[in-house]
């Protein structure tokens, strides 16, 4: 279980995260929603170690992640797909995927081959285009590649930062449903950040609503969908 307690992350004088506490159940999708600037990306970046919290703690089962390096956190089974289809456009599709598993190439070569085969099965279009530079992919394909790069590390916790950003609704629905399948079939735990609350809440087990660095609602997804007053107040729709 992911447990975030009293987390504070500051930039110069702004508290981007101001005393955040919540938990995410293993094997489920927990979604973090909130308006632009609410602190969603900062939350994921603090969990993955890219930002250092001023105070508070992050634990993954019994493991304290709070002061670990990014590299060590990845090695503990936590993978982040950062905002904005983060792939390396100058590298080929296959190289981007290889990169994700490079750190465990020596210990787990066999499993890495299986994991690579798995992501190509999940996203056959990436296999077809494996020799092309990632920069030549469409937005949706790039997001698939970013997710694949994270998956070949065989994470137990996947942090997804706005995977639907800038994608056509049909494509983002397809990507979200693949993540949902993965959760159900492999027991992967997902923390899904979205601005578009509806797609996220439809597949999530639980929802956290952030506003100005604070948790304003922490409810089962079904209740959050139903609470139109809350949504009107914080998301504007």
């Amino acid at each position, binding site marked *: 279980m992911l447990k975030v307690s009293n987390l504070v992350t500051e930039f110069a004088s702004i508290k981007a995260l101001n005393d955040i506490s919540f938990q995410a159940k293993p094997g489920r999708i927990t979604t973090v929603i909130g308006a632009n600037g609410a602190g969603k990306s900062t939350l994921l970046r603090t969990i993955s170690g890219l930002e250092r919290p001023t105070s508070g703690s992050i634990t993954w089962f019994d493991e304290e992640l709070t002061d670990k390096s990014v590299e060590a956190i*990845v*090695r503990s089974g936590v993978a982040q797909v950062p905002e904005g289809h*983060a792939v*390396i456009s100058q590298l080929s599709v296959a190289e981007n995927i290889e990169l994700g598993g490079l*750190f465990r190439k020596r210990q787990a070569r066999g499993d890495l081959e299986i994991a690579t085969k798995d992501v190509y099965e999940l996203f056959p279009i990436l296999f077809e285009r494996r020799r092309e530079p990632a920069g030549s992919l469409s937005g949706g394909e790039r997001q698939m590649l970013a997710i694949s*790069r994270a998956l070949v*590390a065989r994470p137990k916790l996947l942090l997804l930062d706005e995977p639907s950003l800038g994608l056509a609704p049909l494509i983002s629905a397809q990507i979200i449903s693949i993540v949902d399948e993965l959760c159900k079939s492999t027991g992967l735990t997902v923390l899904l950040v979205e601005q578009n609350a509806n797609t996220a809440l439809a597949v999530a087990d639980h929802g956290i609503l952030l506003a100005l660095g604070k948790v304003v609602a922490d409810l089962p997804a079904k209740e959050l969908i139903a609470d139109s007053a809350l949504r009107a107040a914080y998301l504007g729709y």
Partner: protein
Amino acid sequence: MNSFLTAFFAGTSQGAIYALVSLGLVLVWRGAGVVNFAQMGQAMFTTYIASQLIQNEYSYWSAFVIALISGALLGALVDLGIMRPLSSRKNSLLLNSQSMRTTIPVIASLGILGVLKALAGIFWAGEERGFPAPVPTTGLRLGNTDLAITGFDLFVIGVVFLTLVLTTIFFTRTGMGLAMRASALNPEVTRLSGIRVGSVRTLSWAISGTASSLAGLLVTPKTNLSPNTLDLLLIVGFTAAVVGGLTSLAGSVLGGFILGYVIAFVNVYSAPENVFLAILIFLLLALFLRPQGILGSKEVRRV
């Protein structure tokens, strides 16, 4: 032998050395974002080490290998001892602005250059001395005709060719090579892939140190060795790197050979004193006509 071939062979063997220097500069620029002015100071220092070993009756080849290893260690030391501590001092007021963040390592590299020259002065009295070649530096003959190329030129071309082949294999066929390219292109995604970007950066410094150390060993049989001998090589190598687009390894190598030919042809068909002017004109032309480098395209740039 006609003067065209003379210029061509001289250009090839000098160009091979410029290619190494240029490659070394680009490796550190891409990998660490630093223009390393100390690079040829490091090479000068390791060539002195080799020279000292040869004086102490070591064989040429053991001195050669030890100098290359020293080059790698010195490169890694510059990163671990100076560059990394400098860049990790995030709360220093001076380092907080972006322009200072990029300027300070460059100034530090100039400082390192000064220190290395001073140390060479202390250890080796700063005297100019010869440095041996492993094969004859006299012109080769084919039957009765003199060829405009020496055995040593062929040696230089062969060693550099081998180095470039090994470097290419390393970067395109190995996991560590992929990690190095990825770290240079996008450190954040690379860290999120579990790769220790800091160690990869130190490795770029070490490989760059080895390449420049090799350049020092290959150039000094012709130029002699003194604390200042290799300064010129840095300027030419830097020009080659810029001509190659600064971020492309293949471009940096190509830039090195092009500079080699430009200098050799100016030397043969014009006069040696025009070489600097030619380098300058060439650099300006390259910057105006192809600011993205000879191999660079505007957006996608590979290897």
